[in-house]
C-alpha cells in the first residue's frame, strides 16, 4: 500500500485540511500587485508561476463562481500538440511537456494518461489536411504521422471504418503523445500550489467593472461584488466571459462566444485506450478514468452566452457516434452539459499585452483552452512579471488582426478537438 495513502489513513481528522486546497479569505485586501480575473486552470496556473518563478505573491485570483467551474471543468480533457502551424505546434508542445511533470510539480495525481490520438479523415481533402499537419509536426519534432485504414483497424478494432456506409474512413492523423487528464485536478493542483505560496483565491467574487486612469490608457483597479480593489496589473483569463471583461475597458476584440456541448455515458469497464476525433463528422470520444465515455461535437452555430443544453446536439452526436462505434447504441447517456467557447477568426488564442497599460489578455481559446493551461500560465506570468511578451506567444498578440498577420491554424476550416 503506497506510503502516501498510509500517511492519510492514520492522520487524525482534525489535521485534515491543513493546508486547505483553497483558503476562504474573509475580506478582499484593498490592493494587490496583480489581480487575475478568472479562477480556472489558466488563472490559477498564472498565479502559481508568478509566485514560483517570479516571487510575485501579492496576487488575488477573483473567480465569479467556484474554482475550475468554467471551461476548465467542461472540456474534452484532451492534451495534444499536433497542430497545423509552427507557432501553434511550438506553443502546445511546450504545454504537453509541462503536463508530463505536472503531477509531480503540483503533488496531485492529474491521472495524465498518454493514449494516442486519432483524427479520422473521411475524404481526400481531410487526408490532405492530415498530411499537412503530419509534415509540419514531423518537421518540428512532434510524433505525428498519417496512418492508413489497416493501422486504425489494428489499434481500434471496434471502429466501423465504413462509418455506416457514408463518409468511409480513408485514414487518420495519429499522434502518439495525445493524452487525457483529470481536468478538475489541474485547477485544484494549481490552486493549492498557488494558495500555499500566499496567493489569495476568492471564489464567488465577480468583477463588475475595471477602473482606468482618466484618459483610459492605464488600468488602476477592479470593481467587484465585494467592493473595489486597486491593482498594479490586471489579467483577463476568463475564456467564455472575455468579451464582457474586455468591454469594461472599451477594448473590442474578434472573440465571439458559442456554446460547446458535451456528454457522458454511464461508467463502463474501460475498453477504449485511445482518443478518437473525427474532423468531418465533427465529434470526439475518449473514456475517462471513471469509465464514462466522454463525447462531444463542434460548437453550436449561433452566438449565445449560456451553458444551456440542447437536445439536437445529443441527436446529432449519437447519430454520428453509432456510425463510428455501432456498439455505443447499447450504452446510455447519463448527463450532458455545455461550456462557452471563445472563438477567434484564425482559431488561435489572443494573448499578451493590450493597448491599455497593465491590462493583459489571455482569451480566444475556442476548443483548445485546456490543452494550453500550463504553457498559458507560464508565458502569461513571464509577460506580466516583465511587462514583455514571451517569445512563444508573440504570434498570438491582439494587434495581429490590425496588420492581417493571422495565424494559419484555421487551415482547411474544420475545427479539431
Amino acid at each position: 500500500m503506497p506510503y502516501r495513502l498510509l500517511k492519510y489513513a492514520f492522520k487524525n481528522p482534525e489535521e485534515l485540511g491543513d493546508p486547505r486546497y483553497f483558503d476562504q479569505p474573509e475580506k478582499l485586501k484593498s490592493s494587490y500587485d496583480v489581480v487575475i480575473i478568472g479562477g480556472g486552470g489558466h488563472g490559477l496556473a498564472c498565479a502559481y508561476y508568478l509566485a514560483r518563478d517570479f516571487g510575485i505573491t501579492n496576487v488575488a485570483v477573483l473567480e465569479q463562481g467556484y474554482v475550475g467551474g468554467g471551461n476548465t471543468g467542461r472540456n474534452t480533457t484532451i492534451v495534444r500538440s499536433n497542430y497545423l502551424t509552427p507557432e501553434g505546434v511550438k506553443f502546445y508542445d511546450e504545454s504537453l511537456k509541462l503536463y508530463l511533470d505536472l503531477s509531480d510539480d503540483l503533488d496531485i495525481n492529474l491521472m495524465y494518461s498518454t493514449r494516442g490520438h486519432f483524427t479520422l479523415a473521411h475524404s481526400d481533402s481531410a487526408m490532405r489536411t492530415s498530411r499537412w499537419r503530419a509534415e509540419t509536426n514531423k518537421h518540428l519534432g512532434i510524433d505525428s504521422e498519417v496512418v492508413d485504414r489497416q493501422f486504425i483497424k489494428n489499434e481500434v478494432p471496434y471502429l466501423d471504418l465504413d462509418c455506416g456506409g457514408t463518409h468511409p474512413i480513408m485514414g487518420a492523423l495519429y499522434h502518439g503523445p495525445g493524452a487525457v487528464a483529470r481536468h478538475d485536478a489541474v485547477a485544484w493542483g494549481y490552486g493549492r500550489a498557488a494558495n500555499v505560496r500566499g496567493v489569495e483565491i476568492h471564489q464567488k467574487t465577480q468583477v463588475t467593472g475595471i477602473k482606468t486612469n482618466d484618459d483610459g490608457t492605464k488600468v488602476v483597479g477592479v470593481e467587484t461584488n465585494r467592493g473595489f480593489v486597486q491593482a498594479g496589473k490586471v489579467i483577463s483569463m476568463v475564456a467564455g466571459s472575455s468579451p464582457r471583461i474586455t468591454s469594461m475597458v472599451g477594448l473590442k476584440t474578434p472573440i465571439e462566444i458559442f456554446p460547446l456541448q458535451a456528454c457522458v455515458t454511464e461508467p463502463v469497464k474501460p475498453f477504449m485506450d485511445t482518443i478518437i476525433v473525427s474532423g468531418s463528422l465533427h465529434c470526439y470520444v475518449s473514456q475517462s478514468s471513471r469509465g464514462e465515455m466522454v463525447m462531444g461535437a463542434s460548437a453550436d452555430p449561433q452566438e449565445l452566452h449560456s451553458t444551456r443544453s440542447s437536445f439536437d446536439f445529443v441527436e446529432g452526436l449519437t447519430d454520428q457516434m453509432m456510425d463510428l462505434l455501432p456498439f455505443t447504441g447499447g450504452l446510455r447517456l447519463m448527463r450532458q452539459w455545455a461550456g462557452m467557447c471563445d472563438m477567434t477568426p484564425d482559431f488561435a488564442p489572443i494573448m499578451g499585452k493590450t493597448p491599455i497599460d497593465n491590462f493583459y489578455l489571455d482569451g480566444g481559446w475556442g476548443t483548445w483552452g485546456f490543452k494550453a493551461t500550463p504553457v498559458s500560465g507560464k508565458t502569461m506570468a513571464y509577460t506580466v512579471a516583465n511587462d514583455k511578451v514571451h517569445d512563444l506567444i508573440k504570434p498570438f498578440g491582439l494587434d495581429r488582426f490590425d496588420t492581417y498577420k493571422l495565424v494559419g491554424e484555421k487551415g482547411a476550416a474544420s475545427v479539431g478537438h
Partner: protein
Amino acid sequence: MKVIDCPHIGKRPMSEFVYGHEVREMPKPSEASDKEWADYVFSRDGAPGVKKEWWHHVPSGIWFVFERDTLTDKFIRLVDIAEVQYEL
C-alpha cells in the same frame, strides 16, 4: 429546441434555419484607414446583449432579420430589412 416565430411560415424550430451572423454596418471603404477597416473585418462586440442578426429559413429560402438577446436566446422582434439596408 428554440422556436422562431416568422411571418407567413409561422413558428419554426431553429434546426430549419442557418445563422447569418450579426448585422454589421460597413464603413465607407474609401474613407476607412487600414486599421479602421481591419477593425470592421475582424473585431466583434462579443459581449452579451441584444443584436440584429440574419437568419435564413432553408426550406422556404427566405432571409429574416431578428433582434435577439444573446444572453437569454430570446427572439425579441422581427426587423424590417429596410432597417438594415445601406448604400455604399
